[in-house]
């Protein structure tokens, strides 16, 4: 963490700063996607002015083809960064993502590196409804061959973007929709945060809350409220789900003896499920209570605000899960 810098920056602009730094240091880095010059979400807005339309290319609405084209382009030496715009749109390109990009290196016996970043604004954004609210990180964790980045702060967003682009493998970078407009201090100079290294966002001694993406600020809010009641909550952000910083999670649970995992995804086969199983298998002896998972109900995300609220993770859900491990 770099808490001393006073440079409040929007999350979405921190991503752009990471992208900008990567494009400036390596001319093989190109950005493509739908309307990336204007950039409806914002992470690529203005890049074409600095790097030209040749390196910032608008694509047709052909997700399968431009996701797959990056596999061929990366194989011959380009370093494509793809803006999928909305996380749900990965579904349109699933063969090219899961069967081609993720597998080509492995299938070829390691003959080629595929430095590609696929990023999107993802997860619920407030009545985005079922087809614009998906979070695919759980199923993509199961693909094998994709690294998965899901930052929760502007500082992490910038440093992880640079690392994702420098990485010689396909990386899925998921920007939680609701975090785009959050602010945090971000140094101006480029810096990289290694993939696979989690971060403890708040130290505590009684219970470990592993939170992912947009659930991190929620968990922090609950943790601070509980402090007044004398309950010391540690909030751990894995920052990347593949690779997963298992060591940090086990170390934290080893100290607190209690685990809650909060995930912005449907419960079944969620990242929360995987992390919980990993801790139970490897740290069972350190647990003082049954771990708790906090995730969405197993339904599509509905449109109407009260319905949506019923399905998604709310702060009281996190609070109750924490209290359950302490009861």
């Amino acid at each position, binding site marked *: 963490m770099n808490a001393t810098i006073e440079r409040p920056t929007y999350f979405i602009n921190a991503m752009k700063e990471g992208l900008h730094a990567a494009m400036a240091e390596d001319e093989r880095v190109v950005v493509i996607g739908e309307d990336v010059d204007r950039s409806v979400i914002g992470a690529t807005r203005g890049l074409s002015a600095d790097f030209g339309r040749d390196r910032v290319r608008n694509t047709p609405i052909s997700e*399968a*083809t431009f996701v797959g084209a990056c596999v061929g382009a990366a194989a011959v030496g380009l370093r494509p960064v793809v803006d999928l715009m909305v996380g749900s749109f990965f579904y349109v390109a699933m063969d090219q993502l899961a069967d081609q990009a993720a597998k080509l290196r492995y299938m070829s016996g390691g003959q*080629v590196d595929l430095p590609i970043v696929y990023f999107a604004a993802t997860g619920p954004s407030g009545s985005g409804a079922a087809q614009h609210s998906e979070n695919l990180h759980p199923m993509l964790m199961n693909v094998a061959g994709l690294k998965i980045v899901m930052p929760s702060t502007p500082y992490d967003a910038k440093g992880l973007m640079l690392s994702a682009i420098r990485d010689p493998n396909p990386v899925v970078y998921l920007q939680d929709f609701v975090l785009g407009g959050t602010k945090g201090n971000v140094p101006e100079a480029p810096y990289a945060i290694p993939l696979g290294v989690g971060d403890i966002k708040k130290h505590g001694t009684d219970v470990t809350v592993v939170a992912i993406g947009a659930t991190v600020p929620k968990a922090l809010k609950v943790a601070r409220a509980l402090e007044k009641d004398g309950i010391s909550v540690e909030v751990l952000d894995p920052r990347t789900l593949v690779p997963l910083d298992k060591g940090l999670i086990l170390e934290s649970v080893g100290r607190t003896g209690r685990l809650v995992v909060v995930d912005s995804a449907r419960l079944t086969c969620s990242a929360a499920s995987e992390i919980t199983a990993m801790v139970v298998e490897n740290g069972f002896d350190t647990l003082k209570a049954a771990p708790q998972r906090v995730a969405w109900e197993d339904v599509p995300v509905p449109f109407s605000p009260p319905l949506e609220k019923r399905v998604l993770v709310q702060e009281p859900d996190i609070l109750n899960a924490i209290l359950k491990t302490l009861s």
Partner: protein
Amino acid sequence: MTTQPVQVENQTGPDAAKTAMLRTMIRIRRFEEKLAWLFKRGQLPGFVHLYLGEEAVAVGVCAALRPDDRITSTHRGHGHLIAKGASIDKMMAELYGRVDGYCRGKGGSMHIVSFELGIMGTNGIVGGGIPIGTGSAWGDKQLGRDSVTVVFFGDGASNQGVFFESMNLAAIWNLPVVFVCENNGYTEWTPTHELTAGRIVDRGTPMGIPGEQVDGNDVEAMRDATARAVARARAGGGPTLIEARTYRWHGHNEGEEAFAGDYRPQSEQDEWRGRDPIAAYGRTLVEEGVLSQADWDAIDAEESAGVEAAVEFAAASPFPDPEEALQDLFAATPKGSMR
């Protein structure tokens, strides 16, 4: 390769190139026949889709390419690989699942890759290679090279969305790509005309992509059509669609007789076997005086021996250490790319 090139007296330039095309078609033929034989005897893990009867397409197309040009291939890809210069020793070892295969046994028939030869991979998903080849053409262009990518695909893949999407992307970005559709008449086990509206060759027309329908059993016609398309692509003229009309002699996959039944009239099969691209081209070269019947026979004998040697090479190669299954998922450090 373990075989020596046959000596045909006084051959230079065009004659040598013609002889080389005949030789490569024969190599594919004997390789695929051997696979059919091995499959029937349970010697091959998995399953194979053979290229028998379609040899002139791959050989004609690849004869118009430079070593630094690239191809993406299909589930029926052995012919493409051999035509692009792949070693049949390493191919056979891959088909045997052995450590000396192109992918150290991780890929098999449908995932053979040799990036150093410009072979971006056969593909187990129908149409799966079309965006990838479009992308390699984009990458080469963006990086200032004049390499061209040939995207091989079948008539079945012409009904995949990515075919239309990729033609569109190649057209608007003016990419150096040649789409080569091998129309062998059958989409798996259904006649293609029952599943496909209009002519495949016309599918690029609305996007301004020139199309050419070619006799896929005529190796020189395939070479010449490809040469025109490649020259246009290299000169910045953008993509071309070639539809090669041909026929597969064997089934969609080996072993299909267990379930597929008769779905192709015998008369149709006989007619196409009568248009054997290798026999026709060999006769032509003998008539032209490019080589003698004895030369032709010698080439065939050499290639047959080469395939036997490839089987020996594969059978002698060990299986990979099982722990290799856990390697190659991610690159640990930047290694550089294909070149």
